[in-house]
């Protein structure tokens, strides 16, 4: 009985999402009559362009209001429970300052964040700063708003508009489209998600904000992640499928409120605007919430077996402390429960390196490229924040004396 009810509610949720995707074009968030693209820098700083950023401001304000509301409701709810109420003040109040003992920033994190910021800027503003065409190739290559004629890599748009693709282009171009898309998915896999995606950057920034404010997040368990699986697959079907049923996935996709709007495209936002609010709120409480259901990410993930980027594990070095699982934004549990295989790359893995960063056992986890470890787990790094700065206790000199010792900072091996 209970099981049937669960199934029924899942079916209802899926039907609801389908309906929402199909009707998303009729739910306006912010509409314009015409599409205008900013093409030079002067125009970009003009007042009328800045007005175009208004929907973004609305989205951010709405998200901030929603987050405050959720925190408030959570507080009220917990006040019912005397044991929990006692720590409510600690649980969700903003506290200033860094926690002493936080592990030091690793080279890998710096690289990941820089790549993410640089790519997001290039994808969004590349066209404005560098012109839209270089050597006959339209740039920025990954940006759908400014680059529709170039088939290479602007896969996202055409995957959602397959009829356009088949109507407007010849067989060679279509082959080129699928070929290049698959090639990139093969080469990079979900490194695209962890390193290059502007949506990822936005979500990571919101997560960082929560960490700074010391506000408690939502903890998702394995069962919760399992509930997302049908939603993921439904969105994978709907992304190319919606257009055949009279919908337009772009009107649902929250990414429309990121690169196109920020790049200065005067574009109407339909349900995407509301979705973006949801994504901001979701990823504030749950890191990379959207990535967990992103259909494009899932499609790329399907090729993960062939990607040269791998997460390697030394099964006996692992103590099953679960720090990697706690840190993983995608909730991959197998990474700490696996005790036989040395390759623990999951199709959901976005290669963000959080698991390696948090792993306290030397060499137990590592991010490898083509068999070479580029980021290795190290106890030294995890406890680095606890080093007594005044007394200058030098961990490095000691452990460096051993063959590999506690392992140097993995990224240093590049």
């Amino acid at each position, binding site marked *: 009985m209970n099981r049937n009810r669960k199934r029924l509610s899942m079916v209802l949720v899926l039907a609801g999402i389908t309906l929402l995707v199909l009707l998303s074009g009729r739910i306006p968030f912010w509409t314009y009559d015409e599409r205008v693209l900013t093409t030079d820098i002067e125009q970009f700083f003009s007042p009328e362009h800045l007005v175009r950023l208004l929907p973004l401001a609305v989205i951010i304000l709405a998200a901030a209001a929603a987050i405050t509301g959720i925190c408030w409701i959570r507080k009220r709810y917990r006040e019912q429970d005397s044991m929990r109420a006692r720590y409510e003040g600690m649980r969700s109040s903003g506290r200033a300052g860094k926690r002493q003992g936080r592990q030091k920033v690793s080279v890998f994190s710096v690289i990941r964040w820089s790549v993410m910021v640089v790519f997001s800027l290039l994808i969004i503003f590349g066209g404005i700063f560098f012109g839209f065409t270089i050597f006959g190739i339209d740039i920025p290559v990954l940006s759908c708003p400014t680059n529709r004629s170039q088939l290479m890599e602007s896969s996202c748009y055409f995957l959602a508009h397959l009829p356009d693709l088949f109507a407007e282009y010849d067989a060679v171009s279509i082959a080129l489209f699928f070929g290049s898309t698959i090639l990139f998915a093969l080469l990079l896999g979900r490194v695209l998600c962890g390193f290059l995606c502007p949506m990822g950057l936005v979500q990571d920034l919101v997560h960082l904000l929560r*960490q700074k404010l*010391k506000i408690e997040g939502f903890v998702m368990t394995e069962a919760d992640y399992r509930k997302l699986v049908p939603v993921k697959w439904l969105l994978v079907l709907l992304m190319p499928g919606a257009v055949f049923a009279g919908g337009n996935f772009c009107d649902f996709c929250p990414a429309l409120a990121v690169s196109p709007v920020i790049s200065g495209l005067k574009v109407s936002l339909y349900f995407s605007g509301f979705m973006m609010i949801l994504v901001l709120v979701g990823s504030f409480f749950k890191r990379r919430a959207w990535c967990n259901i992103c259909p494009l990410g899932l499609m790329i993930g399907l090729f993960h077996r062939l990607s040269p980027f791998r997460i390697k594990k030394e099964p006996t070095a692992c103590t*099953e402390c679960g720090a990697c699982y*706690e840190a993983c934004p995608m909730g991959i549990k197998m990474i700490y429960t696996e005790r036989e295989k040395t390759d623990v790359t999951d199709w959901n893995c976005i290669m963000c390196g959080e698991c390696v960063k948090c792993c306290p056992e030397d060499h137990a986890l590592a991010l490898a490229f083509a068999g070479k470890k580029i980021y290795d787990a190290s106890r030294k790094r995890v*406890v680095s924040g606890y080093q007594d700065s005044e007394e200058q206790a030098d*961990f490095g000199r*000691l452990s460096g004396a051993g063959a590999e010792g506690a392992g140097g900072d993995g990224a240093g091996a590049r």
Partner: protein
Amino acid sequence: MMGTGRKTGKTGKSGIEERFASRFLAKQEKTSAKYLRRVEELGEMPEALAPFLDTLRRVYVDMALPDALRGKTLIGTYCVMAPQELVYAAGAVPVKLCSGNYTAFSVGDGNAPRDACPLVKAVEGFCETGLMPIYRDCALMAVPITCDCKKKIAGMLAARSRVFPLQVPAGRDDGDITQYVEELYRFAGILEDVTGSEISWETLASGMRQVGRAQYELSRFLAWKKARHGLMWGTHILAVMHAASYLPADVWASSMRRLNDELEAKGEGSGRPASRKRPRLMITGSPVIFPNIKVPLLIEELGGILAADETCMGERGMSDPAVVVDESFDGMMRALANRAVRPCSCPTFADNTERIYRIRQMVRDYDVQGVVYHVLRGCLVYDFEYQLVEEVLGEMGIPVIRLESDYNEEDVEQLKIRLEAFIELIKFRA
């Protein structure tokens, strides 16, 4: 304090009780002093080891509180699963009360059932007599319920002290962690009530930093130990770890830092026990706690070296760090719960195969040639796992010996004969 303070345990005692108390104390001091002497007699002792041995001497021979604990609110904890960080956050200092004392054991033996484990009997004995200051002065005792004996001792202790039993889950899945987080919130509340000071984000962060300092130094030591086999006598390392039970983490950490610095300065030079070729043994199984260190002492006195220890009062008790991935208060609590449950290779968990992997890794890391499986009589959970450990080590070609022992010295000769043969066997194989 030393002379008179120790006799104030009970009020209005009769002559018999007084005689009993003085006999208890004399016997207790004698045993502890003897084991400390044997520890020192191993030789090749780093100078920085002295503060650790002094702490043990002060607690067990002088029967007094170490200076660093004077005037502090003491919270007794019984297991690695009671997070020390929380105790520091409440402005108190945790002491580990798991005991290896023979004299207290003989007192507890009369009250606890015959098949109860000696650790629990010794704890009972200390609380019963009220003669040990570190037990007497605890404002609260936190007893994680890790086995039936611990569960019952929690009940028995409640007659004399305030007790908080921590419900340890039987598994390590998501739900179990959530449950243990709730348990830690309850623990935090009790700690606040007992100490009268508030646990806040700041105090918890500083508690974590305090323990983190100790873990930093321990990690530094272990990294060095892995790189230089035979760095120190295993019994000396056990004494270092046992001293951590009776010292605030920051005090222990600074002593540890001096030890690390000294070992580093010594480098490859002489004065290391491994400068001679010795069979490298590892001890695992039931806790080995001062002064019940007869097995490690015998191993090293008979020509072996204790290269690694996988026991909860040894390195394992402190080495797993709490990894904070969420900077909020709740995130820190989760990190503590996660650290207490997931990496803990205590056989209280129904599925404990991770201990097997840990032993395999340690055999590799420390180049272990033989394993001593220590079973305290009545410690069923560890005894249950012997079979699997033996099987796995057999596959690896590592000989194992199961030593069952109690908290008395009656079996020393027998242990000696068996260990001697075991060490000879390893020498012969090598």
